[in-house]
């Protein structure tokens, strides 16, 4: 169990790191290949979770798909090499808040001995969710 946890944590952290790298780099080929690396790390994560077929299939499909994405990035971006320092983002605050609401575990949320308190989640007052989900706790 511990070995599996270490493997899951390793591949998971790699996937998160490369996934963040997708939107942090300015070079489009690096961006697409970072996405590829994140997806390959997910393949490793599947292998760590003992889904052998899915892991190998993920490695195979995403390798092709993300490399093809690289050439489309170079074709369609105005600044594929990232040397022109172009601004490529908009609505940053909304996006950041929405992303955080998707990613962050809510305060007071922890896994019980039964493997996570799913039903109890709705009853906790601290977890009442605003329409966009982030207003109550992102401050």
């Amino acid at each position, binding site marked *: *169990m511990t070995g599996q946890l270490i493997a899951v944590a390793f591949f*998971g952290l790699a996937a998160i790191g490369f996934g963040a790298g997708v939107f942090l780099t300015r070079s489009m080929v690096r961006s697409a290949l970072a996405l590829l690396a994140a997806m390959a790390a997910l393949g490793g994560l599947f292998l760590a979770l003992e889904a052998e077929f899915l892991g190998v299939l993920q490695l195979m499909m995403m390798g092709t*798909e993300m490399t093809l994405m690289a050439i489309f990035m170079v074709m369609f971006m105005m600044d594929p090499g990232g040397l022109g320092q172009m601004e490529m983002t908009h609505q940053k605050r909304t996006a950041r808040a929405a992303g955080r609401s*998707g990613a*962050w575990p809510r305060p007071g949320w922890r896994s019980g001995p039964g493997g996570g308190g799913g039903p109890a989640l709705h009853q906790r007052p601290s977890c009442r969710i605003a329409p966009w989900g982030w207003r109550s706790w992102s401050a």
Partner: protein
Amino acid sequence: MTPLLAALLVGAALFGIGLYGALSQTNLVMIMMGVELMLGGAMVNLVAFWRHLHPEVYAGQMFVLIVMTVMALEAAVGFGVAIARFRAKGSVEMEEAAELRG
């Protein structure tokens, strides 16, 4: 921390990163990359729940196969839209794609 919880945290983080990217990027292809990351996060959850709740039911793996197919289709359709848009307008910047705004 159990492997299930670790995998779910990874899925949530990837979903969040993908959502941020899909909302913040102006280019269609970058938006598609954000969507791919979100689908990847969903796949992690599916595999983790299959593994730790019902490892004997292979329908869980079928779900993941369907999500993978959706990812491939999303890429194909997205590239098709991108090529059509680029031929018609000369760019795939989504800030300029406001013709349908009422």
